[in-house]
């Protein structure tokens, strides 16, 4: 970390730990992988009287130009409430909600053992055999179900998240607003998709917690075990089929499927077996289209950050997403 950031972080920690001795922060590399947040793993050491302490922590800070503009306070409050719930969410430790201490809004979380492997189901870095990968895929469904059966009222999530009357309309409105706000030019393809979504939106049903970005790339694995689901910045209350649509998005087969062994139908069947409920296929199609509409909104945000000079990542356009969305709304690619 650079020296300005080092001293800001030391001050941030001191204000939370109080007057302790031997305070030391170790960690010097920004971790890659997050496009919407800067990630800094670090180790914290301090002494309190006779006792020595060591905590392994992870700082996630908003970048200057992000692909997702979400509120760190909401994420912090959700994770705080999930800590004693039966869900594999990380423990949050501290928050800088407005960035007044660390330069930009940031969360500090407990750092867990494990590794990250975006394409673990296709082999990825881990190169597990097919049976092991199928087992991991099945655990991903367990994880999704674990989130959907959470007692969100009991956990107090309604205190920090909006309870939508009509989740589909709320989702269209949310991402249409992002596209409207972030686009640097007219988007006729996305206008057509928005109209398709409005014509084909499913009726409101059961409201559950929706993670919004379930994928192996957001999981820490411990061997072949799904250990912790990281990155809860898009969590909200809504229709559980939204998560099912996200993980069966045809554009992201490489992350969620094993060709010939664990494909979209297998995933949906496994989810239905866990929940005992049939997934409405028309609703699933809506949420699969919404998944790519949301990705297009995220891409628009990235393009704007790049064109405004707020990010170092060089972005290209969202042509492939437009192509997939057109095919999806013509009935293909399901």
């Amino acid at each position, binding site marked *: 970390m650079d020296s300005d950031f080092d001293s800001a972080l030391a001050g941030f920690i001191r204000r939370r730990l109080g007057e302790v001795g031997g305070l030391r922060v170790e960690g010097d*590399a*920004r*971790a*890659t992988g997050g496009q919407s947040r800067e990630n800094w793993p670090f180790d914290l050491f301090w002494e309190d009287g006779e006792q020595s302490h060591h905590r392994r922590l992870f700082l996630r800070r908003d970048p200057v130009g992000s692909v997702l503009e979400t509120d760190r306070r909401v994420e912090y409050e959700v994770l705080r409430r999930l800590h004693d719930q039966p869900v594999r969410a990380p423990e949050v430790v501290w928050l800088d909600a407005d960035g007044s201490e660390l330069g930009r809004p940031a969360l500090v979380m407990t750092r867990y053992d494990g590794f990250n492997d975006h394409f673990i189901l296709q082999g990825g870095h881990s190169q597990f055999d097919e049976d092991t990968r199928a087992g991991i895929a099945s655990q991903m469904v367990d994880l999704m179900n674990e989130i959907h059966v959470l007692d969100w009222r009991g956990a107090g999530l309604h205190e920090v998240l909006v309870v939508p009357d009509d989740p589909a309309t709320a989702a269209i409105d949310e991402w249409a607003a992002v596209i409207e706000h972030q686009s640097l*030019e*007219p*988007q*006729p*393809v996305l*206008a*057509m998709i*928005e*109209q398709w979504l409005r*014509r084909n939106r499913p009726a409101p049903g059961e409201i559950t917690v929706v993670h919004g970005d379930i994928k192996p790339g957001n999981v820490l694995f411990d061997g072949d075990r799904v250990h912790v689901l990281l990155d809860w910045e898009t969590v909200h209350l809504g229709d559980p089929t939204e998560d099912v649509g996200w993980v069966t998005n045809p554009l992201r087969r490489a992350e969620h499927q094993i060709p010939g062994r664990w494909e979209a139908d297998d995933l949906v069947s496994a989810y239905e077996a866990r929940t005992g409920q049939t997934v409405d296929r028309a609703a699933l199609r809506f949420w699969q289209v919404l998944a790519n509409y949301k990705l297009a909104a995220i891409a628009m945000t990235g393009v704007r950050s790049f064109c405004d000079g707020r990010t*170092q*990542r*060089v*972005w*290209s*356009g969202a*042509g*492939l997403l*437009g*192509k997939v969305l*057109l095919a999806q709304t*013509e009935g293909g690619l399901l």
Partner: protein
Amino acid sequence: MRPTLSEQIEGARKVLVELVAPQVADPYAQEQVTYAAAALEHAAARWPQVLPDLVADIRALEEVLGVEAAALDEAVPGVPDLDAAEDYHRGLRARLTDEIMAAAEPSPEVRAYLSDSIERLK
């Protein structure tokens, strides 16, 4: 004129990939160099076709919107200037976007245009 713009862009990409990337130890910086090299590769390959494809897309938009083809020549006299052609194109795309939002369902012609334009403008 040699080197062409494409050759210069390709040369810059090679410097990044062959000279700079092996020296970069920081994983975050490595990731950004990879994105930058991919963008240069795309730019080198696409650049010669940008103006002809833009003009082709303008002609297709004029047709789908029922705009007189002469309008481009009025807006951009002579050989199209890229910035002016892009401004004119943006205006047509905004008009199409408004028509899509106002219609119950897009016509087959609009759908066909959108599908073709994604290929032309990638």
